[in-house]
């Protein structure tokens, strides 16, 4: 009658014996019970009455004796277990020091009372100060200041580009001359010497500029932070806000020199975009916003000069929400190396350098840190795997080999995160590692890239990233093999997977409304875009506008 669960070694079976008289008969009821008793005594009692057809006049008697029995035996069990544990200590089977250290650790790690005091972190203080200021009248000044710093950096950058260009032109003419003389007065060796000389000169120039830029950004960052702290102190000291307001105004008038139209100004291109409001969930529905956008991925990052419509507003929006709980994220698809030397990584790094990051370390430093963490994670993993060697890894063999070859590389599906305050619409960038597999037509929902997307959404949940931009086709650029059927198939897969993940998210965070932007490369055709935008409402349930308008 009892489910034979032998899950814990400590569970034992004991027999409950109950004697009662029915008329002249003496009856004995014997019930084997599993200890510790997990079920409700009332239920057990009811079942015994029913099963053994026990007369109702001994109902209460049975109940008391049953509960007494269980109570007694449970106490005995507790005592036995407890004394066993004590015995282990006296006999030396368990180490007292180890035990007490474990206790201490768990106290220190979990309770505030026993935790180590927290060292004040400058970053967080600055975060508080900035968050307060940006939500005050001083925000305008802050933005103007930031913008002016940006202008000076971009001037520097254009100067650099000019100088490099000049150098290259000069070197080209020189090389032409040399080539002309080749065979006459000069040998191949001479040409090579010139070439290497040119290369060196270029290197020197670039390094010079790089260090100068670095210096300038360093100075800017320091100035900026000092100024912010000072402004905050002033604000706190005097509650006389009018005076401060004047000060702010003076500051802003000083700083807002006319922003001349630079050559590097971002030209707003006609974007294609379409927005949807959807409902997810079977019974309880949560509302989310989806947007399909045809744009370059870096358009979300590029800092633009004031003047073009909405730029400043967008900038303000990003600044306001920087330390809030509604962040914006972007998924960038990268290869397996943590650096910024090639491809989209280099382009992104260029954009990230166009403006000083006043809050977070610069991209290079962040990547260095990530590299350290990757190595640490690998070490952790391998030590864990050594502990459990029998874990089946049939499918992962080639992957782990790859990791063994170079532990500092990351594998598809993994991603690292960088934080930025200087990008136009994005605070957090997820660098998701993908390989050439994403270009093939036959990836499934189990593909590492898709699993990476899921983990990204999970991080979004746990860290209040409410807007996230995802490359819909899992590529940033189109190539020949990406035909129309390929695009449709890929878009369907990503739509469906993201829908599944979003439904899953509702159970993680209780259904907070979020925005997901699906990004398609600029190079796809308009027809393709509309095909995709037609596909979206077929996969997601678009909330109808009809219910709002139809009123009887």
């Amino acid at each position: 009658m009892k489910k034979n669960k032998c899950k814990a070694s400590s569970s034992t079976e004991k027999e409950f014996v109950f004697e009662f008289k029915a008329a002249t008969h003496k009856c004995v009821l014997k019930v084997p019970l599993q200890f510790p008793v997990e079920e409700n005594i009332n239920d057990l009692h009811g079942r015994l009455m029913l099963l053994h057809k026990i007369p109702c006049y001994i109902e209460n008697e049975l109940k008391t004796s049953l509960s007494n029995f269980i109570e007694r035996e449970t106490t005995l069990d507790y005592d036995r277990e407890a004394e066993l544990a004590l015995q282990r200590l006296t006999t030396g089977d368990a180490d007292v020091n180890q035990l007490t250290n474990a206790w201490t650790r768990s106290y220190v790690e979990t309770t505030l009372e026993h935790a180590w005091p927290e060292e004040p972190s400058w970053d967080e203080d600055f975060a508080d100060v900035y968050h307060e200021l940006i939500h005050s009248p001083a925000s305008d000044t802050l933005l103007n200041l930031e913008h002016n710093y940006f202008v000076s950096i971009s001037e520097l950058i254009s100067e650099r580009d000019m100088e490099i260009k000049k150098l290259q032109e000069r070197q080209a003419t020189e090389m032409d001359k040399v080539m002309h003389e080749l065979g006459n007065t000069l040998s191949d060796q001479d040409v090579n010497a010139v070439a290497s000389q040119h290369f060196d000169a270029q290197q020197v120039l670039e390094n010079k500029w790089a260090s100068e830029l670095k210096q300038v950004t360093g100075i800017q960052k320091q100035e900026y932070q000092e100024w912010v702290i000072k402004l905050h102190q002033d604000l706190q000291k005097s509650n006389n806000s009018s005076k401060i307001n004047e000060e702010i105004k003076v500051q802003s008038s000083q700083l807002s020199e006319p922003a001349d139209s630079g050559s590097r100004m971002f030209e707003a291109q006609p974007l294609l975009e379409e927005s949807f409001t959807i409902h997810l969930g079977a019974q309880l529905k949560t509302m989310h916003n989806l947007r399909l956008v045809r744009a370059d991925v870096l358009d979300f990052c590029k800092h633009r000069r004031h003047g073009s419509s909405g730029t400043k507003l967008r900038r303000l929006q990003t600044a306001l929400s920087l330390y809030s709980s509604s962040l914006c994220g972007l998924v960038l698809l990268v290869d397996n190396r943590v650096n910024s030397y090639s491809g989209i990584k280099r382009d992104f790094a260029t954009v990230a350098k166009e403006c000083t990051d006043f809050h977070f370390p610069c991209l290079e430093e962040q990547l260095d840190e990530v590299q350290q963490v990757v190595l640490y994670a690998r070490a952790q993993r391998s030590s864990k795997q050594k502990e459990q060697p029998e874990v089946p890894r049939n499918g992962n063999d080639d992957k782990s080999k790859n990791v063994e070859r170079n532990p500092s590389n990351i594998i598809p599906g993994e991603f690292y995160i960088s934080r930025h305050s200087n990008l136009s619409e994005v605070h957090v960038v997820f660098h998701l590692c993908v390989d050439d597999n994403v270009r093939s037509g036959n990836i499934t929902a189990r593909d590492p890239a898709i699993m990476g997307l899921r983990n990204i959404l999970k991080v979004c949940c746990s860290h209040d990233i409410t807007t996230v931009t995802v490359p819909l086709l899992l590529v940033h650029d189109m190539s020949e093999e990406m035909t129309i059927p390929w695009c449709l198939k890929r878009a369907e897969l990503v739509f469906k997977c993201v829908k599944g993940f979003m439904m899953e998210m509702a159970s993680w965070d209780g259904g907070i409304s979020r925005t997901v932007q699906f990004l398609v490369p600029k190079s796809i055709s308009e027809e393709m875009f509309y095909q995709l935008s037609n596909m979206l409402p077929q996969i997601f349930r678009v909330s109808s506008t009809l219910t709002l308008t139809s009123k009887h």
Partner: protein
Amino acid sequence: MRPLKDAQLGAFTFFASALPHDVCGSNGLPLTPNSIKILGRFQILKTVTHPRLCQYVDITRGKHERLIVVAEHYESSLSDFQKQGKTVCPDKVLQVAFEVLEGLEFINKHGMVHRALTAHNVLMDSEVKMSYVDFPIGYPSYLAPEVIAQGSFHLSDSHDEAPLPSGPKTDVWSLGVLLFELCAGRRLLQNSDISERLKFILTLGCMDDIVTVLAEEHGCLDTIKELPENVLELLRKCLTFLPSKRPTPAELLCDPVFNDVSCFYTPFQKPVGLFSSSLRCAHLELPEDISDLCKDDDEDYLSERAIDEVYHLWCLAGGDLEKELTNKEIIQSKPPICTLPNFVLEDGESFGQGRDRSFLLDDTTVTLSLCQLSNRLKDVAGEAYYPLLEDEQSSLPQSNSSNELLATVTLPLIIRERDTEYQLIRIILFDRLLKAYPYKKILMWKEARVDIPPLIRGLAWAALLNIEGDIQAKYDGIDKDTPIPTDRQIEVDIPRCHQYDELLSSPQGHAKFRRVLKAWVVSHPDLVYWQGLDSLCAPFLYLNFNNEALAYACMSAFIPKYLYNFFLKDNSHVIQEYLTVFSQMIAFHDPELSNHLNEIGFIPDLYAIPWFLTMFTHVFPLHKIFHLWDTLLLGNSSFPFCIGVAILQQLRDRLLANGFNECILLFSDLPEIDIERCVRESINLFCWTPKSATYRQHAQPPKTAADNGFSKPATYYTSDYQDMPKTDLSREALALCDLKAEVSPRISAEDLIDLCELSLAGPTKRSKAGKPKIIAVDIRTVEDFSRGHISGSVNISFSTAFSPDGELLQCPTAGILQNYRGRVIVVISHAMKSAAMFAAHLVKVNFPRVCILDGGINKLKPTGLLTVPSPQI
């Protein structure tokens, strides 16, 4: 729950540990977050009520696995004595010990232990109360040796993974330490670090006299020596090193050391619940002088209300737990951008993220200020707290605010449910009505028609479903453990049933689901488990989470009332008849929609089975079901038809605009429905529906025995058609195929007589306003008509009204019909067939509310109600 009295509400918060990255449970579904597990396990604590224990009120889940617990709270605690640094007199020590032990014994009986007994947990008011927390971690100085020896585990791994639960005796040790501190007037083991302290406690095992050793260690040997013998004895008993020799709280309570104290305390008796076999008023004692009861005038009436009510009102009055805790700086969160990880592996494990200090446990309890609430309620007159139920005229108390309240009644339900004062009045009223249940059942029905306060909904529904008797004993008597073949299906369905809800998705919720469903299946051998029963169970379980017996009883009462025989093994005839009547109802109320749906072949079988089989619980979220069922429970078994039609009408435009495929798609995931509008419209539809139109052969047969004296009021709308006495004029059963052939519903001669007010016995009781307007259309030939007809009926013979292709002809009689468009049109003829055809034609040209007289004119002939028109002059 006990009244608030001079207690306060306290709140504290902690974090459940995050699950290890992405692991799936054995059933392949994602694991339940720990916070939900804790939330589910916590619920049982709300039921633990004892004068020596602080009442737990609520637990809520915040963002990122944060949990906030609300409990009864007192500002002063035993640690106040310690702060003063004085010793406490031995008598007081004994009192404290006795009261704490009483509390401990009570929770042990409920299968719980405290584990974290400490000075500031023993809170005081006029009497000492103790709050207990079931954290698997204690306070280092108070830990019993065996607890230390068994090893530690992390805070919120929850009990599930705890290596070994502790027995009740660990608390006795902690109590011993606590009492020792009280006697010595100083705290023990405060100076050394944690591991030293723990080692010291472990070494106590080698000592003979622990009390003396402790006293020596802390240099208070003299104080301890001076203690009276019984206190010393108690200390020794508590501080026994070996658990087997240490007494349990229950044993200690009976110990002779308490001989002097125990006589002051009467043992606690659990108040008798609403549903039990014993008499609720058995222990009621009125004082000799009744005026003693109302001595002081300026009493704080609010504090006489139960704690959970006060908390509920506090929330309504704008209380926000998270804000309170943030203001007291208990919740300090870093900006999320500062806590992002650096790197995440493919399986979701993240690295490079520092441990956030704000996730650490801070066990400070914050007192919730009731100022805002009492301000809000300061205008509520004292009488409002004690409404008189005998006065049938005014259910709402007559006071200054009564006009305001009357105005509130007209506001939308959503707003009423958020109105603090209104809810206070309603809760008090329902609370009193329930206390008088079942005597005040009639008044209960009346008030439920206005609305049901959410806090009391569980019990109010039980009252509306006529639950009575000792339901707990009945439920206990059902075998819920023995495996049955349905187990597999139940196991599959539960993790898919209303899982967005925290309670129902917790493991506790699943276990309760399983037990209630199994109990129902086992106790109804003639019925079977159909998928959908789980959804049907969900609202009852949610409302009565801590009272499975009541959930079971409600479900068992609900199913025969609204879903009679739906859960037969072969239920096709019941469902088919139901759906046919439903499609007749669509045609009756909305002919245009009905024509369209029939045209595209979108029949109710394709979408409405889950609606009715689960009474809409499968298609709506819980909060909508509550509002829907508040009304459904007041109506009879034909009310669901009206709800179905109301839902269709809300989607009318889209249904009319779309073809078959789009309609299927639309209903596969039902769009948002405005539930208040749906309720309003279904009531309206219900009023327009003649009772006999929804007659079903397979409906619940009339109850054999009449209810006892307190039966619900048999009004026109609430009583079932099946419950009416059956006469010659009632409807007769119809074969399913015949029923299917008819587009419009039939009504009985009885209904016709009632609606046309042709009664033999003079004017009917019911006022005219409540009735649908009706027009009888006699389609016999003129000659037959002139030989005798119902007074007030119009004669339109079949042949003159319609052309052969079904078009309504332009003739004077058709004009009459047009004039009466909108009224209930009853078609009367000799032969049912022609009447049905006539009705079908009318529906075809979009005439609403067309029905047929069952049995035709012949039914009426014996009644003598037919009149012959006086010859026209």
